[in-house]
Each structure stands twice: as structure tokens, then as C-alpha cells.
């Protein structure tokens, strides 16, 4: 089976992290975002993954060669000369997707959930039409484009962008399965699958929905990245509690890489991810944060709702909060206060940032 992952965008909203690595390689819960998807696809029997990329990234290519080896699958990179949107890349990869009559998966690169690929294939085969899109329930549908469908069958009636009155609370989760026949609908030019392809398929009665069970998050921006982390850790608590760290000094769901060192008299959690080789010194308090590979948090600091980028260093008695994001290799000097700071890579911070702002 095949899958195509849309990894084309620049990931601007996840800067400063995406200034160091392409978004699919940003660590989410101690694993590059893309690997969460690759591993779930492999588990569902996918043996050929096509990455639709609109920029060249040696780093991504190299990493994919490694993953091909590790997962025992084929990974192709389909390069666009110009960004082709969310549908155009399917046309560009037509040759790879159209070799047999099997359906294939398509997914956005920045969604995180308990990927339901097996169920999706099953459901899709049962209704026998051209496509199925996974939908998920949201609390505030007016912020999204919602999907209106027949409750029993899942057959889609229409899509409504940012509805002002309630029509549905289900939104497109960015996970699809299609029959190769749908490729004939797409031309090789920049096209939006959501706006230009799906409405036509729905009209013709060729598009169905399957509702996602469990959590779902688009982690394409820092605030949502942290929310997604909380959800993912909670799901680990249910399905693989042994992977979470417990014991004195740990509260709630905490994921700690075995190579990380945690000092004495710390209180870590709830909802914290600590990456490989991270050093957390004594007396540190961390909650609702991701601390990435190789970072150091010095003693007596306090962190809430932050992302500490790779190899960054947070000084002693620092307070960071309110979605402060440190890019790669940032140094925060002792005793500073960072409130919603967005710090670009390789910066050294010597002054507090009392109000949210970008530090170039």
C-alpha cells in the first residue's frame, strides 16, 4: 500500500523551530513529527511513502534514507518546482500512485492523533466510493471549515467555511484515503484539495467521512503544539503508561528520554516532554513544556507552557511562560523573565522580555 504525505509548506507558523529543521523533522514528544506518521502507516501495511515537498532539504532526504532502512519501506521524495498546494502534489506523483488499483492514503504533515489507518481502509472499502476523509469533532466550529454529512452512512453533503450558525461540529482532520481514479480530477497546477476538489467529489456522492475516535490536533503552531503534546501524553497514559515517568518529583503525564538527567528537588509535570541528553539541574519546576534534545535547564528555574529548542540553555532562576519558544541553541542568562518570547536560533538573551515579542 502507498501513502502520500504533504510536507510542502514552509512551516512559518512553527518558527523559530522550523528555521533549524523542516517542520516534519521537528521533535514532537521526542520523535520527529513525520515519524509518528510513518510508523503508523507502516503498522497499517503501507510499504511505499511519497513525501510531497516544495522545497529542497538535504536534511530531510538524508533522514528519509535512514528511515527507509529502519522501517524496511520505500520512501520517495516528490519535488515540486513551485508550491502546488494541497492537491497539485497528487498530480505530480500520479505515476507513483497509479501503478495498481489499490487505494492510497494522503495526509497533512502536521496533524497528530491515534492514526486510524486500518479502520479507514476498512471503512473506505465498505462504501466503495472514491474517497473518505477523516473528520474530528471540535468545540468551536465557527473557527474552521466544517463538513456536513449523513449521520448513518457518512456520505458528505457539503463543506461550509467558518459557519456563522451551527451546521456541524465536525472538521476535516487532514487524513484521507482515495481510489486512484480520483487522480483524474486533479491537474498539474497549484490547487487546493479542500476548496477545489472535495466539493466536486461530494456533489457527485463520491466522498465519505469517517469520524475519528480519540484526540486530534493540528500542531502547526506553538500553542497548538503544546496542546497536542498534552493530548498525546494523555493517550500514552491510556495505551502505554509504562513509557511515562512516575515517582517522586513527577506529576501527571511526563515523558522523559532515558538519557536525560533530572536533578534533585525538581517537580516536573504535568504534561512535560524531556528529550535525549537534556540536563535539568536541581530545584527546577517544569510544567506543560517540551524540552528538546541536548538542552539544559539550570537550577531553580520555573517553566510553564514553553518549548525549549535543541541545545538551548536556560539559566538559573529564570522564569519562562506563556508559550515562550526558544529556537535552537539559544542561551537565556540567569534570573531573567520571559513572557511569550519567540527567540530565533543562536541568540543569547541578557534582558527580560516582560511582554510577548519576537527576539531576532
Amino acid at each position, binding site marked *: 500500500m502507498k501513502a502520500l504525505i504533504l510536507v510542502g509548506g514552509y512551516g512559518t507558523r512553527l518558527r523559530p523551530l522550523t528555521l533549524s529543521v523542516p517542520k516534519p523533522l521537528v521533535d514532537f514528544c521526542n520523535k520527529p513529527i513525520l515519524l509518528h506518521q510513518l510508523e503508523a502507516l507502516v503498522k497499517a501495511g503501507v510499504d511505499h511513502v511519497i513525501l510531497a515537498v516544495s522545497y529542497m532539504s538535504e536534511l530531510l532526504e538524508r533522514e528519509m534514507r535512514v528511515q527507509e532502512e529502519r522501517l524496511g519501506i520505500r520512501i520517495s521524495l516528490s519535488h515540486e518546482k513551485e508550491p502546488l498546494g494541497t492537491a497539485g502534489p497528487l498530480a505530480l506523483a500520479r505515476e507513483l500512485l497509479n501503478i495498481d488499483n489499490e487505494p492510497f492514503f494522503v495526509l497533512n504533515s502536521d496533524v497528530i492523533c491515534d492514526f486510524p489507518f486500518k479502520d479507514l481502509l476498512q471503512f473506505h472499502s465498505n462504501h466503495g466510493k472514491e474517497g473518505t476523509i477523516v473528520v474530528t469533532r471540535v468545540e468551536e466550529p465557527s473557527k474552521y471549515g466544517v463538513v456536513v454529512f449523513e449521520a448513518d452512512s457518512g456520505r458528505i453533503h457539503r463543506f461550509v467555511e467558518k459557519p456563522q450558525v451551527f451546521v456541524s461540529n465536525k472538521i476535516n482532520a487532514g487524513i484521507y484515503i482515495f481510489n486512484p481514479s480520483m487522480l483524474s480530477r486533479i491537474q498539474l497546477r497549484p490547487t487546493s484539495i479542500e476548496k477545489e476538489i472535495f466539493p466536486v467529489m461530494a456533489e457527485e456522492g463520491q466522498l465519505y467521512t469517517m469520524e475519528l475516535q480519540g484526540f486530534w490536533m493540528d500542531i502547526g503552531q506553538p500553542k497548538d503544539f503544546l496542546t497536542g503534546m498534552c493530548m498525546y501524553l494523555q493517550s500514552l497514559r491510556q495505551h502505554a503508561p509504562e513509557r511515562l515517568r512516575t515517582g517522586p518529583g513527577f506529576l501527571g503525564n511526563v515523558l522523559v528520554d532515558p538519557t536525560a538527567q533530572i536533578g534533585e528537588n525538581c517537580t516536573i509535570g504535568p504534561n512535560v516532554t524531556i528529550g535525549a541528553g537534556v540536563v535539568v539541574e536541581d*530545584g527546577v*519546576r517544569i510544567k506543560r513544556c517540551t524540552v528538546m534534545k541536548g538542552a539544559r535547564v539550570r537550577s531553580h528555574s*520555573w517553566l*510553564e507552557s514553553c518549548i525549549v529548542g535543541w541545545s538551548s540553555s536556560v539559566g538559573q532562576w529564570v*522564569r519562562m511562560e506563556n508559550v515562550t519558544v526558544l529556537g535552537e541553541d539559544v542561551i537565556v542568562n540567569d534570573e531573567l523573565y520571559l513572557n511569550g518570547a519567540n527567540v530565533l536560533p543562536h541568540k543569547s538573551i541578557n534582558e527580560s522580555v516582560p511582554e510577548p515579542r519576537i527576539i531576532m
Partner: protein
Amino acid sequence: MLKAVILIGGPQKGTRFRPLSFEVPKPLFPVAGVPMLQHHIEACAKVPNMKEILLIGFYQPNEELNRFLFNAQQEFKISIRYLQEYAALGTGGGIYHFRDQIVSGSPDAFYVLNADVCSAFPLAEMLSFQKEHGEPNSFVILGTTANRKQSMNYGCIVENETTKEVLHYVEKPSTFVSDIINCGIYLFTPEIFQHIGAVFQKNQQDMLLYPYDGEEPTNGWHRAEAIRLEQDIFTALAGQDKLYVYKTLSFWSQIKSAGSAIYASRLYLNQYHTTHPERLASIKEGGPKISGNVYIHPTANIDPTAMLGPNVSIGTGVTIGAGVRVRESIILHGATLQDHCCVLNSIVGWDSTIGKWARVEGTPSDPNPNDPFAKIDSETLFREGKLTPSITILGCNVTIPSEVIILNSIVLPHKDLNRSFKNQIIL
């Protein structure tokens, strides 16, 4: 023989020092670990032939003042008395009212010191300076140099550069007059009372001529006796070959706002290297980490993993937990700082508690470090309707919960906060 008078004001003064002046008379507020006034008294007691120190003010006699006077007498082996004005008589009226007490025993000269200044108090130097002048009964004002802009917040002095005579004196002018300012520290001979007496007589006559001048708060005596040294005496004495200015290069600052108390603490702690090295904490086995100048009261209980300084004063019975950080702050007696909390540029009130990992932080209002003549600004709390970032002050018995931040805020006494606050006055 010499005497000294310290003008300590009264309860209606020191409003810029709230909420700290609710708990303790401002002159007794600890600066560098000891009551503000004690620095004056130590300096006076050091002057040879000093026989008596008189505090003049309009505070009701109170236990704290009594205890302070008692302890100071014991320590300095010198007569120290408090003389209470029946009403606020101004900076000149009080000494005139109590002139008999001051001149009894026939002192050759006496000092007058404002209580709310911080200074190296070069009192002996002022005396030698006075002796150098042909005129034996001259009066001396201690002066210092300010920058042009700030000078206008002070009493400004124009001197004769060779003789050092005061040619012109004006209090807080609205345009630039001189960058030499009045430090609020004077040396007088008893002859000063003739000059104050003349003003008093004139006030009395004025009252007979104009018996009603609008609202009359107290009796006529008060109106005649309320005399300001600066406006009523110095202005008239300027150019009369009576008043001289001794300019000092040593440290000096007013202590008007609470923020200036932190700055004054820094100046006094620095002076302790020569005057009181025993008051400076040093790095000891089993003691906390010390950076720069720190005063720790012997009764304070401090975890060895805490880190204090520079410019920190820790009062009696204070408890400081593991991994606590304190810098540029005053921690008043009985306060508790729980593990890992961080206190910067703040005054933590008596018996207050700061929870674990909380951050209590203010913005210092230090003088511009690149201008050697800059003074601390004790401006108003508000600018354009917004609270200007200031040091953070926790009044007495305030509780700060764990893990919150209190930034640039003033918390009135006896508050239990339950969340973070920034740039606010919390009633």
C-alpha cells in the same frame, strides 16, 4: 562642645514611602540593616566633643521610637532625646521652638540633619571648613553637585567660587539656577536663632496686620512658628557673608520613595567596608552563597543553597529556604522565602511569605550610572495614567502563593494573593 539635631518629621510626612510607613515611622525603616536614623546617629557620635543628639519631630511618643532611643543611648553612650513639636513647625520652626534645649550647656555649634537623607555625613570636615573661614560664626550647608535637570528638584546654591560663600539660595526653582544642591545637612552656631527669631517676629506682626488668611488650621502661634529653614532663612542669609557651602564628593541621596531605600542601602552597604566590615556577610562553610555586599541579621535562618546579593539586607528572624535567590532587595523581619523563589529589586514586608518558585520582581529606579552627578528620581507613581515601573513592595503580612509572578507591583498590608500580578497597586 557640639550638639546635633535630627529633623524626623511626623506621621503626615513620608507619604511617598507608603505602604511601608504604615507600619513603622519612616526614620526607623531599616536601611542596610539598621534604622535609617542610626546612620545619622553613628556619624554624629563619632564627631569629637559631641555631647547630645536631639531628635525633633511631631510623632506621638511611641514604643518603637522609645526602644530605638534606649538602644541607641546604650550603644553610643551619649544623650539622645526626642523633642515633640505640638504641630508641624517646618524645618526651621522646630529648632527655634526648642532653642533653649539646644543652646543649654552652651555648645559652640550644632548640626542639623534631615532624617530622610543617606550620606557619608562628612561632619568633621564641615567643622574644619567652618574654622577655615575668617568669620567665626558662619553657617555651613553641605552641598553636592547634581545634573542640570535634576538640580531643580532640590534647594539650589550659587557660591562664590573662591570664598565658598552662598551668594544665592532658591528652593526647588522652576528654571535652572545652579548645579550645587542642598544636602539637608547643616552646621549652625547659636546665632542662627537670631535670624529665625527675626522671621518669627515678622510672622507675628504680619498676623496682627492680617489676622485672617483664609482657612486657619491651628492657632496663631503655630502660624508664626511654622518656619522653613530653606525658603525663610537661607534665602535671606545668602550674600550676607554668613552662609557658606561645603561641597562633598562623597555619596549622598535622598530617601523619599521606597525605591530610594534600596539605593540608599546599596550606598551604606558599600560604606560598611570601611566603617563596619563586621556587618557584611562573607562566604562561610555551611552558609549561603554571597555575591557583593549583603547584610544578614544574625537571627535570620538561611539555607546554604540560597544565593544572596549584591545589595541585599535580611532582617531579624527571616527564613530563607533552599535555592532561593535574592538580589537588590530588603527583606524585613519575620518574612519567609520558600524554596526556589526569586526576589529581585523588591522590599518584602514584615512577616510576609513568598511561596515556592514564586518570582517577586521590581524595576529599579537607580540613577543613570553613566552620569556621576545623577540622583535617584523619586517621581510620582503614575505617568500618563499608568503606574510607572517601580520596585515591587510587599506590605506587612502579605502572602504570595507558589509559582506566581508579582512584577512592578505594590501590595498593601495583610493581603493573601491568589494569582500573578503585574504593574498594579493591590489594595
